[in-house]
């Protein structure tokens, strides 16, 4: 029983990171129809920049804030320089562009920072907490709380603010949105900035647990992509469900079945789910326009 709880707590921590990654994918996809394979690099940059800020003597909150702002600026720049100019390109071109951006950012991070593995202490100490015979690190609570808070803030943003509603309108129908006076270019820039910021938050929260290095982005992007697709591309709730589900599933597989094939289970699940629900668990039905 305490084992199951232990696996669940592990899975929720990892799942919360996947959910934040998937959320980043979702926001950009909704605004631009692009799946951004550089999303994992934002997570890496958030962690690396915070690590270097702390190493340079900045207080943790300031280092974190700078990391978020810097990564968000990079997200806006990525959109302006690489995504916006390729508007309307076929899916395969967009995949190559964003993977190209990921490779570029990884190379740049390796030069700008270094090629070592980095970590900084957890925000609320390192002593594990005990719950009903299971243990959890305080930093895991930070990660889970961070994911929950991000999700709640986004929900408020999309449902209560005019800008948020404009983003949703653009996602639903860009042409109609621009006809009613929404600046869809600004919305795209905003979405990339927001998405990069969420990635950076995930990165800076999780680095005390998982550590980070310049080349960790691609693996993160693949997990996030898988989570987003499982939940249903374009649905923020789907991103949350997909991320948590993948994290918990991996932990349970590692615990009860085989630690060797725990990643296999997620991909088998994805292929099965997509076979029966081609739009993912919570994705919107779309019809071919002729």
């Amino acid at each position: 029983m305490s084992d199951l709880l232990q696996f669940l707590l592990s899975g929720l921590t990892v799942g919360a990171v996947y959910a934040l990654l998937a959320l980043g994918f979702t926001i950009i996809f909704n605004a631009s129809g692009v799946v951004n394979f550089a999303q994992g690099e934002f997570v890496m940059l958030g962690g690396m920049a915070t690590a270097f800020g702390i190493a340079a003597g900045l207080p943790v909150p300031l280092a974190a804030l700078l990391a978020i702002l810097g990564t968000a600026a990079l997200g806006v720049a990525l959109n302006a320089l690489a995504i916006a100019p390729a508007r309307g390109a076929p899916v395969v071109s967009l995949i190559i562009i964003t993977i190209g951006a990921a490779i570029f950012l990884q190379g740049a991070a390796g030069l700008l920072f270094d090629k070592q593995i980095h970590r900084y202490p957890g925000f609320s100490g390192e002593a594990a907490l005990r719950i009903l015979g299971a243990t959890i690190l305080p930093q895991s609570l930070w990660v889970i709380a961070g994911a929950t808070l991000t999700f709640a803030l986004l929900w408020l943003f999309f449902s209560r603010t005019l800008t948020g509603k404009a983003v949703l309108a653009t996602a639903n129908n860009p042409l109609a949105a621009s006809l009613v006076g929404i600046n869809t270019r600004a919305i795209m820039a905003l979405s990339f900035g927001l998405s990069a910021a969420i990635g950076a938050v995930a990165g800076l929260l999780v680095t005390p647990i998982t550590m980070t290095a310049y080349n960790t982005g691609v693996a993160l992007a693949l997990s996030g992509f898988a989570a987003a697709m499982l939940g249903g591309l374009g649905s923020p709730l789907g991103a949350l469900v997909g991320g948590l589900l993948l994290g918990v599933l991996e932990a349970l597989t590692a615990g009860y079945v085989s630690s060797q094939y725990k990643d296999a289970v997620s991909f088998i699940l994805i292929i099965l789910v997509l076979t029966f629900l081609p739009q993912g668990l919570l994705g919107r039905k779309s019809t071919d326009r002729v």
Partner: protein
Amino acid sequence: MSTPKSLALAAILLAMGSPAALAQIRIGATLAETGPAGALGDPEAKTLRLLVEQINAAGGVLGEPLELVLYDDGGDPNNARTYATRLVEHDEVVAIIGGTTTGTSLAIRSVAEDEEIPFISLAGGIEIIDPVHPFTFKTPHTDRMACEKLFEDMQAQGITRIGMISGTDGFGASMRNQCLDVTAGYGIEIAADERYAPGDADMVPQLTNIRNTEGVQAVLNPGFGAGPAIVTRNYRQLGIELPFYQSHGVAGQAYIDLSGAENAEGVRLPGTALLIADQLTEDDAQRAVVTAYRDAYVGRYNEPVSTFGGYAHDALAILVDAITRNGEADPDPVDLRDAIEATAGLVGTTGTYSFAADDHLGLDLTAFRLLQIQGGTWSETP
């Protein structure tokens, strides 16, 4: 219409340049400076660059400067094979150092053996030099020796049942196999055998299973990079009190820093003299070599030395020694190979090398030192 293509081809040929005249002694290297094994290959490359500079500043070898031609194969054996071919056929090097991983070393070996060029590998896999291939040597201990060293200690402690958690990367998988192979000789049973992938964020489920396995007396974690540090943290998080053994894959200060000194306290692993340079006694044969290398490396790069850089140091030392003994600035590859095989009593950072026709590793178990982490630093166990 073929103009653009032939133009591109011409540009490619131009940019690659043509083999330069032989004015110096050219040494080739192909290492995994980047990629999954980058944590190993990066210090190796830095070490080679630093030492070649030092040697040239001191007048070179046989009065000729060394030239290092170094490629980054990213740990991919296909790339390693391409670069090895390039080193032999295009750059016309006298010998090749490299192969950060066992996979890349095997790829380079087949080129080196085909073209009869001496090759010194920096990887741990025993299959690189067993059976012996005429032109292939290596500097690190084998994975099998690491297992033996650890099992020796476990045997001394009366440990007979252990749990193992290994990475699925080349290093972890290879050492896992070797350890499974030699358990019988030490009366050790591996009662739990768990795995993790290199990028994994959390190994709590695997460790929980090991903890729940009946009668486990110690835990062994073969791996390198971030994985073992996460395993160490999870180990303490779960409050497991059993003796904890790591591999030589994490023999560097980075492991202690990433795990946290309090979490790594008491961890044992097979290491080399390099990590305990300051604790070596005055009469220790390795003291001078180890201290000189460490001071030069730390002075230049401002980061701690690791065992892996030490492997590269030793490979270059063996090569320079052999070239000097052979006495020709443009050595015949077969003569150079013979000179390497005749290496005797060469003191390196890893141990003291003496090759023989049937031994292209040249080290024994005594070169390994069983280290323990105490108060955030390494110390030799008595």
